[in-house]
């Protein structure tokens, strides 16, 4: 799946926890330098934010009209 914000997308909107977390972590492991990962979710993943910060990732979140949180993750 691709998206205007990134070619690497984890669409976790209809997945039960902890699948979104696990899939995001696995996708981050495969990310090449300079690439960005887009996570789609129906909630703000605060536990994931903490893990991202601890591991030196940056992220940017946008709430869209249909209630999807678009979380763009990259290593600065």
């Amino acid at each position, binding site marked *: 799946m691709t998206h205007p914000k990134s070619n690497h997308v984890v669409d976790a909107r209809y997945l*039960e926890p902890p699948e979104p977390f*696990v899939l995001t*972590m696995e996708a981050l492991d495969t990310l090449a330098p300079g690439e960005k990962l887009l996570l789609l979710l*129906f*909630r*703000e993943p605060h536990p994931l934010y903490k893990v991202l910060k601890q591991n030196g990732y940056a992220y940017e979140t946008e*709430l*869209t009209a249909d*209630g*999807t949180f678009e979380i763009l993750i990259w290593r600065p």
Partner: protein
Amino acid sequence: MQALLSFDRAPPFAGPLRFFLTAPLFGVLAGLLMVVAGPDIMASRWMPATLAATHLITVGFMLQIMVGALIQILPVVTGANLAHPLPVARGVHGGLSAGALLLAWAFLSGTAAGFAAAAVVLGATVAVFLGAAGHALWGVPSTSPTIRGLKLALVGLLVVLALGLVMALGLGNGWPLDLASLADLHAGWGLGAWAGILLVAMAYVVVPMFQLTPAYPAQGSWWLPPAVVALLLVWSGALVFGSGSAVRLVQAGLAVAGMGFAAFTLHLQHQRRRARFDATFRYWQGGLWCAVLALAMLLTAAVRPEATEWRGWSSLFGIVFGVGGFMSLIAGMLYKIVPFLIWLHLQNAGQGRAAAPNVNKVLADGPMQRQMRAHFAATALMAGAVFWPEALVWPAGMAFALANGWLAINLLSAVRLYRRHMVELGPVTGC
């Protein structure tokens, strides 16, 4: 990266668990009180036993679980960490349990000392919780409708507490208060701003997450909680200025807002991506329909105030909204939260050495569904007892006590599984 699965920020399981296990016991007490008090409990909302049973449910059951869930969930949905979660949980749990019992005793005995003791204990306890939660949320930006909703719900709890304290001290000391209007406002803030907004804010997260539905649209999610608070502020102002028509207009607005939310959630449930009708789904479906029914009663009362002259109006509204609505939605959520927490803590304790049991195996669906049917049967009997108190109040009380005892047994069975696995894992820390 797999090591990062450790949710090290989750509060110890003992924090929220104590609230979840104690709350159903207050439901049992309320049911037994119905049995002891007999048909008189349905005579009026002002009967001492009616007020005692109502607060055993609202403080002993609802507030207890909501506070326990917030202690657990605040870091997950807001990123805010409660300082010293375990001591706060211990103190608040003890205070709420003692406070609910003291308040029930105060209503039953009618003594000034009882009301003073309940006011001091509940006032101090809720203040401690609000202080801890407020401190954690201080400076946390409202980046989602859920965070905004949680903040407003806490403001609602503060107002509920203030109104409750004024009434408790007024009742104990014979102050000349307009108790009927104050009690309506207390219930309005309690069910609308505290319980209502908290439930709405949590639903934004847990309905899509656990029932695999689409999300609530962003725009409506942002405005619903502040709209409810704004309406309640107008209600409070209208009371000060003595405008009965404004109060009715606000009640109509609250009813429409609540029905809109419940109807939309039912619509979301229809679009879910899971074929299974599990206990949580059923509990929510039943709870939402009860809420729609109760709010239709509120709307009717706002349009035609003479409807409330019927002696059973308040009791029926309270049973359908509180027991059929809120208690069902709360129990439905507990049946997801408790197994999930058990899975989470076992996963952390195992740290790759042992796999945690599948989250759906922690608590089997069959016992949950049977307990849910007992709860809805008790709700129907209680509603029936408003019309035929002589015939139905005893079976209703017994059924309600039984359904709540069953909830405690189901939750305990999940905790026993947790303890068994922890013993097998050997000595670990943090849980």
